[in-house]
């Protein structure tokens, strides 16, 4: 069964959610849009994290040292190898595979150790500063370099957590691991989780190290700290300015260090607060049904953010997708079902529901065709359980249709209305019960009506 945007645990049918584990659950086919920020390791209260930061910085500075000692080729080679760490699957790649940077860029980075006297003398404390001196250094490049230098640790971490959560480990050859003693990359054979479809090894990363953009970054420096920004016209000019005015960069770094308490890791999913949830429901409540003036789109956008937050953390949101059936554009919300709640386990066992599809319908009244559309879609990949999020409660006839569908094909289609959404918002606010229990309630009601 092909899953939509599969993650490692979904592929292996492992029942844990993102909230429950310490690592960021990687996608199998694409990168997580986050990066390891070395600054989070530097500011961490954990000695282990601080030591890893020191090891990364030392490894990076060592390249500058040997570059200045005349071993240019070797330094460039190591830096190029360090510039891509595809096993962690972080960044912007749609296929989990990036490219290492070229020799010219590596040389430009290492030339900093020659051109800037302070760096020549003391090296970097935060190597992510290179973004402020060299063009074409993206946020995921910083992350990849950091991950490459501490890959040995990450492999141990991955093995430990894979054993804890039952993720299968397989022998992976030619994993390029940085050797801290010889300051070079060695190919090793290690046991790692793999994407079985293409055999690509997967390394897990603690979620406490992840941010969308590094704490020290070019845009932040340019927008918030650069004193004479009016006089600088383009990026290249700024990079040259920074090289010649290293004290300005140093002042920026000192400020960022002082503000370290504000530097927090970014959650992979952050539910909207209660006030926003209520606001979104208020918007939905007054929206007319139909498609005039794009009200359907407005309904879908608001419902997507609202429902994804209401059912979190029991259900991790996968994506909002659009599909066309019989010329009609249909929008669905897809959730991973990791059996984190008794009712979710029931639908997994009874209806083979690995992912929950929630179809959005901004219509005044559901008709038989709406039920059929979801019914046909359930054949393909989602198991035999689906939800229609509609504006009004279904008529008796439509509800009977869903019961008949169960009788004939053992498929369960639940229909949630604005009233149910209102109840979910109420529970989200009061915290007396879980909002997902409203869906469970509908499921129990549905099963009570099923014959036999």
């Amino acid at each position, binding site marked *: 069964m092909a899953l939509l945007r599969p993650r490692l645990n979904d592929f292996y049918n492992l029942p844990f959610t993102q909230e429950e584990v310490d690592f960021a659950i990687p996608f199998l086919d694409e990168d997580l849009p986050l990066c390891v920020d070395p600054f989070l390791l530097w500011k961490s209260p954990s000695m282990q994290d601080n030591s890893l930061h020191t090891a990364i910085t030392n490894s990076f500075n060592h390249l500058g040292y040997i570059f200045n000692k005349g071993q240019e080729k070797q330094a460039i080679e190591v830096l190029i190898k360090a510039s891509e760490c595809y096993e962690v699957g972080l960044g912007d790649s749609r296929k989990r595979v990036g490219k290492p940077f070229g020799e010219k860029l590596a040389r430009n980075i290492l030339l900093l150790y020659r051109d800037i006297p302070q760096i020549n003398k003391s090296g970097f404390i935060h190597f992510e500063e290179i973004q402020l001196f060299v063009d074409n250094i993206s946020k995921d490049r910083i992350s990849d370099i950091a991950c490459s230098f501490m890959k040995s640790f990450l492999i141990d971490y991955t093995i430990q957590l894979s054993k804890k959560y039952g993720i299968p480990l397989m022998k992976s050859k030619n994993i390029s691991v940085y050797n801290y003693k010889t300051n070079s990359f060695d190919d090793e054979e290690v046991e790692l989780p793999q994407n079985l479809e293409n055999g690509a090894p997967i390394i897990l990363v603690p979620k406490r190290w992840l941010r969308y953009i590094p704490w020290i970054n070019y845009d932040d420096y340019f927008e918030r700290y650069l004193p004479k920004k009016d006089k600088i016209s383009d990026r290249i000019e700024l990079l040259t300015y920074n090289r010649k005015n290293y004290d300005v960069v140093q002042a920026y770094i000192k400020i960022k260090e002082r503000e370290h308490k504000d530097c927090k890791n970014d959650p992979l999913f952050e539910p909207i607060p209660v006030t926003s949830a209520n606001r979104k429901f208020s918007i939905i409540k007054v929206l007319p049904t139909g498609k005039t003036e794009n009200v359907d789109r407005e309904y879908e956008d608001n419902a997507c953010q609202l429902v994804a937050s209401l059912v979190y953390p029991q259900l991790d949101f996968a994506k909002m997708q659009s599909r066309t059936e019989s010329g009609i554009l249909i929008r669905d919300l897809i959730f991973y079902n990791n059996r984190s709640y008794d009712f979710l386990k029931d639908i997994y066992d009874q209806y083979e529901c690995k992912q929950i599809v929630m179809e959005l319908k901004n219509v005044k009244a559901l008709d038989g065709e709406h039920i059929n559309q979801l019914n046909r879609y359930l054949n393909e990949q989602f198991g035999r359980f689906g939800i229609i999020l509609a504006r009004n409660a279904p008529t008796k006839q439509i509800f009977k249709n869903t019961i008949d569908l169960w009788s004939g094909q053992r498929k369960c289609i639940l229909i949630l209305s604005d009233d149910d959404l209102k*109840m979910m918002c109420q*529970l989200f606010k009061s915290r007396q019960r879980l909002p997902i229990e409203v869906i*469970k*309630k509908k499921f129990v009601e549905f099963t009570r009506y099923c014959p036999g």
Partner: protein
Amino acid sequence: MKEKDIELYEKLNAQLEGLYEEISILSKKSPNDAVNKFKLKFINQVLTDVSSILAEKYRPFKDFQSFSEDDLPTNADVTFMLSQYINCMEKLRADNIRCDYESWYWVVSGQITSIQTAPPKKIKEK
């Protein structure tokens, strides 16, 4: 009623009225909010005990035993049901007490006892 039932009745009636008081406060604030599982567990426990003392004759609804957690009963639902049970408990009491001079006493097996009680609410209200 038997003598040992009187003591049980008084305990359960006090619990029932206590629950009603608490939940009706919540109900006034947010009638459509669900009652949490912790409260529901004890409400159901009291309702089950009360049902056994009321027996078939006095129970308010034949097809209601207790609240189902899965049905997400709201504060308003629970308040409504508790008030029904309170009324039925009062009906049971009113049928089993008698006035002797100016005081009211429980009746056990057709005989008036020395266990004093309040007058029926209907009379008190008049």
